């Protein structure tokens, strides 16, 4: 799998896709969506879609892609090569969400949690297939959050399609399993070939499973923590494992909106009288507007 566009800009989001088979533009198709790398604290999350004509569903079943979870990395890669060779009737597309995109989305001021990000990514991929001329009829998706609500959301967005959201969809629907293979292979590759943007010396990729409860992963995080800058962008800062190590070992940093919570809680414990007394600063004549507007003050001392 060739992920050069993502490798070069692995702090953003990248879309990769196969050419759309002509058959998919003329026959009614099914599309499966699955993800890879939701749980780890390291590396990107990948959303994959696969689509093929309804008439080719049986061919996919015969490929036995449904057992993808039991496969090794090498076996998955072989299966992907097989899928990719079915260019006449099978197409795929991937959306790679870098750890940086995941972190910044989840930590932005207007809440945008991982489920919302996942839903939007899936919707964008379906739309991509439609925009590319694929004659979509059926969509099969693994659950992200409550299945019914997700199905409702997708159905409302795409009323012309038949949407099925089910847990363990990759075991039930070969087209979803095919998408799962594509997503997993992409994630494996992206992690293996990760180029650290940061100029780090002797960083190794022996981070264990990458899951937050893996002691080896935690050790890797602690070892690669910079007290001012935190982690390399390989890490999902928004994961609570990453955050708790930062809280205990990094220098404290305050932002413009940091005090919002502190002020709210401290005001509750203040006496009402505190708001009515004149403080010493209030008794000083206020500075001229010129200085106030520019946040300039007289320096009393260094």
């Amino acid at each position, binding site marked *: 799998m060739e992920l050069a566009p993502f490798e070069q800009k692995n702090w953003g989001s990248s879309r990769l896709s196969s050419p759309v088979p002509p058959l998919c533009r003329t026959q009614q198709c099914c599309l499966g969506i699955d993800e890879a790398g939701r749980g780890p604290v390291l590396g990107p999350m990948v959303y994959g879609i696969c689509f093929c004509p309804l008439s080719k569903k049986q061919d996919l079943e015969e490929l036995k892609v449904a057992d993808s979870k039991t496969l090794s990395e090498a076996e998955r890669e072989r299966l992907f090569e097989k899928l990719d060779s079915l260019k006449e009737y099978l197409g795929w597309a991937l959306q790679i969400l870098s750890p940086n995109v995941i972190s910044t989305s989840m930590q932005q001021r207007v809440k945008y949690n991982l489920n919302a990000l996942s839903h939007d990514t899936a919707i964008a991929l379906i739309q991509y297939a439609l925009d590319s001329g694929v004659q979509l009829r059926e969509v099969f998706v693994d659950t992200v959050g409550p299945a019914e609500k997700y199905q409702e959301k997708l159905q409302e967005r795409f009323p012309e399609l038949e949407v099925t959201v089910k847990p363990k969809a990759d075991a039930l629907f070969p087209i979803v399993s095919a998408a799962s293979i594509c997503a997993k292979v992409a994630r494996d590759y992206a992690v293996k070939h990760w180029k650290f943007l940061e100029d780090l010396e002797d960083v190794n990729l022996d981070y264990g499973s990458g899951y937050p409860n893996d002691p080896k992963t935690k050790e890797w995080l602690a070892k690669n923590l910079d007290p001012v800058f935190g982690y390399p962008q390989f890490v999902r800062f928004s994961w609570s494992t990453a955050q708790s190590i930062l809280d205990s070992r990094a220098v404290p940093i*305050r932002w413009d909106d940091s005090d919002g919570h502190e002020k709210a809680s401290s005001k509750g414990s203040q006496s009402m009288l505190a708001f009515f007394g004149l403080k010493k600063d209030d008794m000083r004549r206020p500075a001229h507007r010129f200085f106030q507007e520019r*946040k*300039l003050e007289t320096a009393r001392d260094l």
Partner: protein
Amino acid sequence: PDQWVLIARDSLLELPKKPGDGTFFTRLRNPSTGEGALFLFSSCAQQLFEIKVFNEDYHSWFIGQTVQHDGRLFFATPMDALFLILYYLIKAEKEQGKFQPVDQVIVDEEFPSSHILLQCTQAVQSLHHVTEEKEIGSKKFYKYNKEKTLKWLKKKVVQTVKALKTNNVCVGSAVQSSTFIRSRQILDVTEEDYTRYAHGLISEYIPEDLSADLLKY
């Protein structure tokens, strides 16, 4: 902390000709509030600079390969030392009301560096703008004169108005960002707006009573 970020003229960094003659910070009495404030004297105390600080919450500096927690940005801007001397002249007038040598006027136990103001030759040479002078022998004696001071301050206000216009400072009632450039001139800004604004700025450097008198003037 032993490090701060300051914007100042290059000339303030020149090495002094003699040890002890270099640029230095000191606290002097702010003539408007009467409280201590930070000032800077150039080499040999020839020029006085006021120190203003850009102080917004939640800032720090990267300086080379270091972090400086203190995110303030200091500015050293030249100012007319006569404003500071004026404070003492007015005080002397209120307390004693007689002609005195200027080195006896600028005495401040709380801010002992204030005598250094006497080294600002340009300000000392301009004392006649705000005082009546008498010369006995070779010695000069000064007494605060309100009328002369108001005339001098008016010139300051006029100069400030010119500077406000040249620098496109927004003096109207509408609040706008200093980086916002309007495509059309605001037509409702009057000469009076400029004068009031300039008066307000000058008032940052004079006692409140004098500011009120200046406004009437």
